[in-house]
C-alpha cells in the first residue's frame, strides 16, 4: 500500500473528505526528502494551489499523525519546532546550529543500538527515540575560527592563512614575508595600544591594528 492510499484511508476513517488540496499534501509528503514542519509544507502546497489554508495543513497533519501514518518530532534545542516525517523512514534526528539556526538531519547507527539497549533495560519495545543535538554548524565553525592578526594574544602561536584587502598595504605585508603558512607571534603593543610589535621569520615587525586586521590567521 502506498503512502497516498494509507493517508486517504486515515482521512476517511476520521470522517474527512479527500479534497484536491489534501491530495496535494499527500503527494508532497510522500516526496519530501527531509523532515518538514507545518509551515514548510504549507508554503510548498501554496505554490501549487493558492487556495490551500494553513488550518487545513494543520488538521491534515494531525489526523495523519493520529493514524500513525506519519510521525512527528520536536527539533532544535528548545523543542520549539515540530516536524513531520513519513513513518517508514529511518530514525533520524536533528542538529540545530545555535549561531545561524540552520537545522540539519542526521542519523546514526547508534540510535538503533540505543533503542535495543533501552528496551532490554526496562523490558519495553522502544518505538521512537527523540533526540536533539545543538552546536555550531560547519560553516559557522569555520567562520568563528577565522581570526585576524590583531586579535592574537601574546604567547599564542599562529599561522597566516590569507592576506585580505588590496593595494600597497597588502603588497607590503606579503613582501615582508607574511605569506600563507608563515608563523607569527605577537610580542607587545605600543604604549597607546597601537601599533603592535610582531615576530615574523625571526625579526620584529610593527603593524597598525588596521593592517593586522587584513591578515587572517589560524591558531596553533
Amino acid at each position, binding site marked *: 500500500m502506498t503512502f497516498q492510499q494509507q493517508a486517504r484511508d486515515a482521512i476517511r476513517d476520521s470522517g474527512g473528505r479527500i479534497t484536491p488540496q489534501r491530495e496535494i499534501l499527500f503527494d508532497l509528503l510522500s516526496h519530501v526528502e527531509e523532515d518538514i514542519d507545518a509551515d514548510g509544507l504549507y508554503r510548498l502546497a501554496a505554490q501549487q494551489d493558492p487556495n490551500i489554508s494553513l488550518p487545513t495543513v494543520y488538521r491534515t497533519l494531525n489526523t495523519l499523525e493520529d493514524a500513525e501514518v506519519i510521525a512527528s518530532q520536536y527539533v532544535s534545542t528548545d523543542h520549539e519546532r515540530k516536524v513531520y516525517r513519513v513513518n517508514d523512514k529511518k530514525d533520524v534526528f536533528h542538529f540545530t546550529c545555535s549561531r545561524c539556526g540552520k537545522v540539519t538531519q542526521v542519523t546514526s547507527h547508534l540510535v538503533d543500538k540505543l533503542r535495543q539497549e533501552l528496551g532490554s533495560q526496562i523490558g519495553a519495545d522502544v518505538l521512537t527515540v527523540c533526540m536533539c543535538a545543538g552546536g555550531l554548524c560547519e560553516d559557522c565553525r569555520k567562520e568563528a575560527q577565522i581570526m585576524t592578526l590583531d586579535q592574537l594574544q601574546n604567547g599564542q602561536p599562529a599561522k597566516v592563512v590569507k*592576506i585580505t584587502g588590496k*593595494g*600597497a*598595504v597588502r*603588497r*607590503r*605585508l*606579503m*613582501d*615582508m*614575508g607574511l*605569506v*600563507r603558512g*608563515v608563523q607569527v607571534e605577537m610580542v*607587545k603593543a*605600543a*604604549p*597607546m*595600544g*597601537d*601599533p603592535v*610589535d610582531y615576530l*615574523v*621569520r*625571526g*625579526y*620584529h*615587525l*610593527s*603593524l*597598525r591594528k588596521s*593592517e593586522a586586521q587584513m591578515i587572517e590567521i589560524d591558531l596553533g
Partner: protein
Amino acid sequence: MAVSSMKIALAGNPNVGKSTLFNALTGSKQHVGNWPGKTVEKKEGQLYIAGQEVIVVDLPGTYSLTAYSIEEVISRDFIVHERPGVVVAVVDAVNLERNLYLVTQLLELQVPVVIALNMSDIAQSRGFHIDTGKLSVQLGGVPVIKTIGTRGVGVDALKTAIQQLASPTVKQAASIDYDPNLEREIQQLEATIQAIPALAGQYVPRWLAIKLLEEDEDIVARLSAYPALLTQATEAAGRIEAATDDDAETLITDGRYGFINTVISGALYRPQVAVETRSDKLDRILTHKYYGVPIFLLMMWVVFQMTANVSAPMLDWVDGIISGPITHWVTALLGLLGLESTWVSSLLLDGVIPGVGGVLVFVPVLTTLYLAIGALEDSGYMARAAFVMDRVMRAMGLHGKSFLPMLVGFGCTVPAVYATRTLENESDRKLTGFLVTFMSCGARLPVYLVIGAAFFGARSGNLIFGLYILGIAIALLTGWGLKRTVYRNKPPQPFVMELPPYRAPRLRDVWRQTWERTSEFVRKAGTIILFSTMVIWLLMAIPARGEGEFNDVAPENSVFGVVSQVAAPIFEPAGFGDWQATGSLITGFVAKEVIIGSLSQIYVGEAETVDAVDEPMPTLTEDAAFIGSSFVDAAVLTVQEVVNIVPRTLNLVPFVQIPEADFLGIAGDEADTTALEAALTQAYTPLAAVAFSVFILLYTPCMATVAAMRQEFGRQFVFYQIAYTFGIAWLAAVVVFQGGTLLGFGG
C-alpha cells in the same frame, strides 16, 4: 680592457649595514646627491679592482621592487635601464629569509648578482650556521661572500667575486618554481613579449611578464602603447584566478618565499629555541607601556637642546670670525687696492660676506642635528620613536617620525626641514616639511621680545606664549586640511615597519654622513642664500628716485624702499600698512632676526658703530689670536651647554630650580633696544603690533629655509609653501587686527 669604467650597484634591505659596506668598499671617494627629480638620496663612490675603476651606486634600501614606493621604482629602473655590470646584494645573515626575497627579484631581473652575507659575526654569535657553498649552489651559482662591514672583513673577497662575475662567461641559473597555472601564463606572455623587439630589447621578457601579471601600475602605465599585450595579461590573470582561487600577486609572492625555503633548507642552521637577545631586553624598557613615552620625550628634548643650544657657541664663533677677522682682512685688502668706500667694498662687506656668514652659521646647527639623527637612526631607536608615537601623530594626520622635525623646528626651521629625511614615505615627508615652518623658531623670538617689551612690558610673556600656541594650532589645522584635500585621494600608505635590533651607532659612519650632508647643504642651499642676500643688497643700493646715486641712497629712495611702498597697502587691513613695516618684512625673508636690525635702521637711524672709527685695525696676529681664543671659548661653552642639558631638563619639573653651569662667567650681551621700542610705540597701536607679530610667526621663515625646502622637496613645493604661508599669515594678521578692532581693542 674596457675603456669606460664599469658600474656596479649595491642593493639591500634597510638596516643591513649597506652604508657601512659601501664606505668600506669605496673609502673616501664618494659623491652624495639626489636621484634626478626625486627627494631620495643618491650615493656614488669609486672603487678600484685590479687597477680598473669601478663606479659603485648605492641604491636606496628597500625590501622589495614594487611600484608602490619611489625608492623601489628608482632601484629597479636603475637596474633595468642602466644595466649595472654586477649587483651586490647586501644580505643580513641574521635575517636570511626576508633578505633573500629582494635577491629573488634581482635574479628575475637577470643581472649578475653577488651576495654579501653581512653581519655574519652577529649571526654566528647567535648560534646560526650558514653553509655559504650550499647556499650559492641552491641559488644557481650566485657567489655568497661572508662580510663584516664594520671591520672590513670580506671586502677583498667581494671585490674578487665582482671581478669574476663581470666577465660575460659566468652564467647564473636560478629558477623559481611557480604554481603550474601561473608558470604556464608567464611563459605565454614571455613569448608574446619576445616577439615585440622594442620590448624584448629593453626589458627581460620573463620579468616583464611577471610584472604584468602582478598588475604593476608603473609597468602597465609604461606599456600603454601595447594594448593587446595588456589585454592578454589581464586575461591571463583572470584565468589564473579562476583556476587557483588565488590572485597572481599572491601566487608570485608565495612562489618566491617557497623558493627561499628550498634555498635555505640544508644551508641554514639556526637554534630552535630563540634566546632573548640584549636588544629584546632593551626594547622592553624603551617601548614600555609606561616608560616608553617619557623616554621618547626625553630623547627628543635632548636632540632639541643639541640643535638649539649646544650648537650656539660654535655658531657665535663662526659669526664672530666672519664679522671680525674676515671683515678686517677684506677691508684691508680693499684699502690696498684703493677700493675702500666704493660700491665694490659695499658689495663685499654688506652683500657677500654677510651672505657667506648666513650660510656658514648653519653649519654647526646642521652638524649637531645630523649627529643626533645619525645616532638615533643607527642605533635603531628612530623606528621605536615612530612605534611609540604613531597613535598620537596619526590622529593629527602625521607619522610617528614627524615629531622630531616638528620639535627641531622650535630651534631652527632649516635643520627641521632636513630632519624630515628620517621619514621613509615621500608624502609624509612633504607634509611634515610643509608644516615645520609654523613651529616658531629661535630667530623669531627676539622680534617678539622687542615688540612684547615695547607694547606689553611685563605681560609680554603672554604674547609670546600665545604666538607659539598659534603656530602649533595653524600647523595642526593645515595638516588636517591637507589630509582632506591634497592628500584625500592618496591610497593609505603602509605603516608596516621593521623594528631593527639595537646596535651601537658607528661613529665613523655617523660622522661621514653628517659631513656629507652638511657639505651638501653648503653647496646647494648655500648658493641660494648667498644669492638672495646679494639681491637685497642690490635692491638697497639702486636708487629709484630722489637724489641718491648707486650705493649712496637713502633706504626709502632705493628700489627696495619703492617696492616696500608699493607693497605696503596690502597690509593696511592688518594695521601695519606703512613702508617701514613692509620693508622690514621683506628683509625678514632673508632671516627673521634681521627684522629688528632693519626696524632700528629705519626708525632710529644708523647706529654709529663705536669701534669702527677710533679703534686701530687689529693686526694679523691679533686676529689669529682672536680666532684661536674664541674657538677655545666656544669649545668650553659647547661643553657647558651639553652639561646644562641636565639642569634644563630637571628644571622642567615644577618647583625644581637647579642653576645652570656658567664656565666663563659671560653675561648675555643683550642689545639695547629702548630707542627702537619707544619709536615703535609711537608708530603702531598695540593691536597692530600683535597682528605684525602674528604675520612674522606665520610667513616664510627665511631664505635658508626656502633653500633647504628647494633642495629637499623641489621648486613647485617651495612655490606652494611660500604662497600658502604668506596667505595664511596675511589672513591671520587681518583677522587679529579687524577682530580686535571690532571687540574694542583698537585704541
